[in-house]
C-alpha cells in the first residue's frame, strides 16, 4: 500500500498544465515515466537528495493507468485530489456539471459508508 505515492502522483500532475494533458492523452506512458523519474523526488529538495524507496503496487499502477477513479477511491487516494485532476482532464468532454454528477453516480454503485480510509 502506498496511498501517499498515489496522492503524490495526483498532486504533482494536477499542478502542472503540461502533465495534465500528458496524463489525459497517454495515461500508461505518463504513469511509467512518472514512477521512474518523479516518484522519489522530494518536492522541496534538490533532485540529488531524492528518496530511494517509493513505488506503486500493481493495483495502484493499474488504477492510474486506466484513469479508474472508482479504483482510486477504493485504494484510499485522497478524493479531493482525484476529483480535481479528473475534472481538469475530462470535464471538457461533457455538459455543465454532467461529468461531476456521473463521477459520483458511478461511485454509488460501488461504495457506501464507511468509505475507504484516506489516512496516509
Amino acid at each position: 500500500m502506498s496511498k501517499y505515492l498515489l496522492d503524490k502522483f495526483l498532486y504533482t500532475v494536477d499542478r502542472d498544465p503540461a502533465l495534465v494533458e500528458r496524463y489525459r492523452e497517454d495515461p500508461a506512458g505518463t504513469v511509467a515515466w512518472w514512477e521512474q523519474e518523479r516518484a522519489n523526488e522530494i518536492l522541496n529538495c534538490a533532485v540529488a537528495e531524492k528518496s530511494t524507496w517509493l513505488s506503486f503496487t500493481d493495483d495502484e499502477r493499474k488504477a492510474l493507468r486506466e484513469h479508474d477513479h472508482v479504483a482510486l477511491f477504493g485504494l484510499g487516494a485522497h478524493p479531493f485530489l482525484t476529483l480535481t485532476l479528473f475534472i481538469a482532464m475530462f470535464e471538457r468532454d461533457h455538459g455543465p456539471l454532467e461529468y461531476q454528477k456521473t463521477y459520483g453516480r458511478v461511485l454509488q454503485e460501488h461504495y457506501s459508508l464507511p468509505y475507504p480510509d484516506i489516512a496516509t
Partner: protein
Amino acid sequence: MATVAAVIASTHHPFYYRASTATGADRPPFADEWVAKIEAFRETLTKARPDILVMVGSDHFHQLWLDNMPQFLVGKAPYFDANWYNEEREFGLPRMRLAGDEQLASHILRNGLDAGFDLAFSNELRIDHSITCPIITLRPDADLPIVPIYTNIFAPPLPRPGRFVELGRTIRQLVESWPIDKRVAIIGTGHLSLELGGPRQFGEHGPDPDFDRKAVDWIASGDLDGCLSEVTLDSLHQPGNATHGFMDFMLMMGAAGAGAKADHVDSLDLFHTMEAYFTWYPNGVPA
C-alpha cells in the same frame, strides 16, 4: 489595545466569483439571490470598519503537502500572492495579492506558542480560495492587510473538534491582547455538509440537509456545548466526506464565544452544498 470589530464565519464557495460575474445565458438562475445575500453579508463587515483581517482557512493541497504537513500555520509576510493555477482552471478565480500585517502575525505566533499552540509559520505563503473567497465576497477591494491562519481539515490525522474551538478562543484572546490600537475582524471559512470526490457529490442539495440545519442553529445560537456533544472526527464522515471543514466553523464559534448569538445569520440552499453566513459584533453592533 486592539479591538475585535467583528467575528465572521462563512462557507467559501469557489463558484461564487464566476456565478456573480456571469452575464446573459451564462448567468445561473440562483446568481441574483446569491449576490443579494452576499452584499448584505458584506455590509456587516463594512459597518465594523476593520483595519486588519485575521483570515482563517485551509490550504487545499496547494502549498502544504503530505511530506511536511502542519496542523495550524500562521502566515507572516509583507505580502501574500493568492490563488493557484488549478483554481483559475476550475473556478475562474483571479490572481490576487494581499498585504500582510507582520506585527500582528508575530504577536499571534509568539503568544500562541506561549498559550500552548505549537503554531507553524510561513514567511512565503501563497494563499488559496479558502481565504480569497471571503475576500471576494466580503472585501472585494482587497485593501486591508491580513494575517492568514491555516488549519488542517484535509489530511488525516486531524486535530479534534475541541482543539479547533480552543484555537478560536485563543485567537480572539491574542487579538484582544495586542497592544496596538487597531480594529481587527476575525474571519474564518469552512463547510457545512460537503462531499468531494465521493458517491454523494454534486446532488440537488448538500449531502446532509439535516446536519446543515442543525449546524446553522448551533452556530447562530453559539451552542458550543450542543455542537461539541455531537461532533467528533468520526461523526463528521456521516454528513459528507469533506465535512471536516465544519471544524473551521467550530473554530469561529470559539472566537465568537460560547453562547454568543450571531448578529447576522443567513443561508442559501444551493446544489451540492449549503451556503451559510454569520457575523458577531463582540463589542456591540456598530451604528
